[in-house]
């Protein structure tokens, strides 16, 4: 990846839609994750196999994180948070496959992820507090804070996308430079570092998404029926 990361490279044109590398890789990851999930969950049993136990452990850890971070029942948010984490992790680690550029190294992908978190926080806030109640949160602790709260909503969404983009893109660049300069063995430590960075960034993005959505629904979390679990 020696071209500018700020420019989206188009692979082919699908009608009016320009299909870039990130979109194509995303489709591949989408098929891989969905197909793998279907394969792994098509024969679930009460007596779990090793793979089923791994999946159940993943869901249990995810539910625990949601419950600890958002202080609500994890069921309504499990799919969104879990899918964001798995997709970002898979996208970040896709860098290890030769010739594959991670979709999260594309600003459009990170912006789309942040946009989804932004919309989800608003939707969950409105669903939890009602439209008026959600809008009143911008005037807390006083109406003077309304502009700052609006700016906070926008900037944290922007920072969410830029953080992920910067970390992954920089890793891709470092790895590309190392590959171009030192051959095969030298980039291995950088690749291991990218694995760690990719996992951490996926975790950070997911936790921040939980924090943002949880902040939107937090005021009524104590009265949420499922929060008594």
């Amino acid at each position, binding site marked *: 990846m020696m071209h500018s990361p*700020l420019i989206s490279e188009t692979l082919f044109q699908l009608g009016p839609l320009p299909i870039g590398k990130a979109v194509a890789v995303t489709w591949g990851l989408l098929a891989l*994750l969905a197909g793998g999930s279907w394969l792994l969950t098509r024969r679930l049993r*009460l007596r779990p196999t090793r793979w089923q136990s791994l999946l159940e452990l993943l869901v249990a850890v995810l539910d625990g994180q949601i419950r600890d971070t958002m202080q609500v029942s994890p069921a309504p948010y499990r799919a969104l948070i879990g899918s964001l984490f798995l*997709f970002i992790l898979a996208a970040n680690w896709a860098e290890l496959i030769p010739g594959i550029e991670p979709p999260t190294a594309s600003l459009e*992908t990170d912006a789309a992820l942040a946009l989804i978190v932004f919309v989800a926080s608003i939707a969950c806030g409105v669903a939890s507090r009602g439209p008026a109640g959600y809008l009143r949160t911008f005037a807390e602790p006083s109406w003077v804070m309304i502009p700052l709260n609006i700016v906070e909503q926008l900037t944290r969404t922007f920072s969410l996308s830029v953080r992920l983009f910067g970390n992954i893109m920089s890793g891709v660049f470092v790895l590309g430079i190392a590959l171009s300069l030192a051959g095969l063995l030298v980039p291995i430590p950088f690749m291991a570092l990218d694995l760690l960075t990719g996992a951490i960034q996926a975790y950070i993005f997911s936790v921040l998404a939980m924090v943002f959505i949880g902040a939107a629904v937090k005021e009524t979390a104590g009265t949420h029926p499922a929060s008594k679990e």
Partner: protein
Amino acid sequence: MTLDWWSLGLQAVNVLILVWLLSRFLFRPVAQIVAERQSEAGRLLDEAAEAKAAAERVRAEAEAARAQLASRQDTALRAAEQEVAGVKARLLREAEEEVRQLHERAEQAQVARQQAALALVEERATRLALEIAARLLERLPDSVRLSAFIDGLLAGLDELPAAARQALGAESAALTLRVPRTPSAGELEACRQALARALGREPELKVAVDPGLIAGLELEGSNAVVRNSFRADLARLHRELSHESA
């Protein structure tokens, strides 16, 4: 820096589709199977609790049945012991009764043997006395064995009731005079005269020799008998001894 809005929209749609797909094929099935397992575990725990409770009930019933059985066993044992004691007492009583009867029978048998032995001794003594008397009489004259007893015979007649003596004297049939040996004519005449004095008339006599008399005379009529002989005396003595020993 340019932002490809088409790509941004496509990625957003892609991620939303991924969210739906993973929710459909990963999170929902796994959460559902976990919930089912929890439900099944709860059901199994409930069933285990019910089974435990049932087992406790069965154990309590078994304990009660065992206690009841032990009580019945004790009762049966006591009843058996009482029955055995009763049977033992009855057998002891029967054994004691049997021993007592045996003892009585043995005593009776002993008494009978003693009486038999005594009778045998008496019989032997009687025979011995007769034999002694006979041998002693052999040393006396034969006239003594007969004539010496005439006065005794008359005394016997005197002891008879008057009516019996008169009836004896009035008999038309001959009176039997038993003697130990054949009397001489003189002895027979002496007897006839003595009887005539006692009876008031001279009787007709039929002499019968009976050595068993040893010594003496016996007069027999149809209704009365007067004995004055050693045999009669020994017989009387024997009866008297027998009465004394009884």
